């Protein structure tokens, strides 16, 4: 579905998922930081409110993930996530080379986006890791912490809840780093706001990258 230089990259279901996910993750990071670093002297937000909001946002994000997962399975969107391992390092190096040097020399991107390629190799790898490792890991550990009676009490001599919580907080931190980089990389293009607009109207403008 193209119109001149525009590709309809982001169907409505994907944009709804992305919007809910973005808002949910922002709430989760804010409330998560508030809980992790809470102190009687400094509270960004009331602790109890932060816990409740974190739980609600976590449940919404979990259902939203199912929406993404099955949406991907049932539509063609999953094909953009398929990763060929052969030559992957080479492709990644090319893309890194473009971001660190090529784009400043106004070179053409090594993997221009098209109807067949929605993500460059770096995007593909980072989205795969984030969406198929980090987020499911967070959902599983988060649900376990929501129902702590399900967690194995002791793994050898270490508390099961302790291990789960450390994993949850660490993965949460990694997702927040992903978010920062994701938001920044999205500003790379002909105009810094171009990609943000695409995530609203669904069309990706091919003129300039």
């Amino acid at each position, binding site marked *: 579905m193209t119109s001149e230089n525009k590709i309809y990259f982001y169907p409505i279901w994907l944009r709804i998922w992305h919007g809910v996910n973005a808002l949910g993750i922002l709430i989760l990071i804010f409330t998560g930081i508030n*809980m*992790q*670093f*809470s*102190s*009687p002297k400094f*509270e960004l937000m009331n*602790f*109890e409110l932060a*816990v*409740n909001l974190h739980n609600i946002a976590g449940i919404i994000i979990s259902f939203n993930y199912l929406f993404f997962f099955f949406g991907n399975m049932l539509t063609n969107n999953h094909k953009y996530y398929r990763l060929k391992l052969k030559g992957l390092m080479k492709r990644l190096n090319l893309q890194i080379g473009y*971001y660190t040097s090529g*784009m*400043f*020399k*106004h070179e053409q991107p090594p993997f221009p986006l098209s109807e067949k390629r929605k993500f460059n190799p770096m995007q593909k790898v980072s989205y795969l890791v984030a969406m198929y490792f980090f987020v499911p890991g967070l959902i599983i550990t988060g649900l376990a912490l929501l129902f*702590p*009676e399900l967690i194995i009490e002791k793994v050898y*001599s*270490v*508390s099961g*809840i*302790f291990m*789960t*919580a*450390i994993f949850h*907080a*660490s993965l949460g*931190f990694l997702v927040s*780093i992903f978010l*920062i*980089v994701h938001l*920044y990389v999205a500003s*790379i293009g002909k105009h810094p706001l171009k990609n943000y607009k695409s995530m609203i109207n669904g069309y990706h403008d091919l003129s300039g990258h």
Partner: protein
Amino acid sequence: MRSSFLFLLLMLSVGISQKSQAQEKALSPENDLCIKCHTHQTFTFQNTLTKKEDKRMMNPLYILDKDHFASGVHAKFKCTDCHSADYTTYPHNAELKLEPLSTCLDCHGGDEKYAAYQFEKIDEEFQKSVHYQKSGESFTCSKCHNQHYYQAKSRTSYVVDDIISFSNEMCMSCHSNNTKFQLLSDTLKPALAQIHAWLPNQELHFKNVRCIECHTQVVDSLSVSHNILPKEKALKNCVECHSKNSMLEASLYKYKNLQSRSQEGKLNSIISNKSYVIGAYQNDWLNRISIIIFLLALTGICIHVVLRIIKK
């Protein structure tokens, strides 16, 4: 394989028999006669009126759990150390029930041997507590600390869960039992689940912290605070515990903390014996690594932005 199984079985049985021997040994042999009746459901005596031997039900309150007693702090005591020596006559004189029993301070007060326990300070704190304020002298130490079974768990146990359940059972012995509660009160026991409905993950809190964590005023010099606060003054601020300087370090984990400093590595005691408390657990190394990663990401982005502007 079979021989190692048999060996294990042998070791276990030796262990068990040694344990029961130890318990038997712990009790004073002078208690044998008392225990003979006071660990059973029934007792027999010579009825002086009918001139026959009578068998009666023992009052359940007077039945002692021998093993439980043997693991308590007073296991080596003779019954007559606290109860009247006249109890050695049988059947007992009914009036003996009226004798006042010794209080904890009668024995422990001013005793050098127990200086570390600070019984006088405990008494001082207790007199400020809601228990004393409402019930006065009739709220004796034994209302919480059963002299027959008491163990100094918060000082001796290596397992935090044990300390918690032992402590909470003391509160629950009255607060979840109307009969005992009404020994000192004219009202019914408070509905604990409803009163604590505001507490997120109520069951988890009840299982993993002691009632006294929120319901006492922490005194640093005491191992366990005894100033039980009225409910209006109980702690209701989540971050008092859920923060880096968690109050739990000064209460529930105080003994463990002192112990770990002198004996084992702190990390080991933390990961093996603490429940995870949101906000209270902040590992310095993980914090440092995360700050470094965060700063690296920000620096990378800043350099990239500058290059984008320059090379536009």
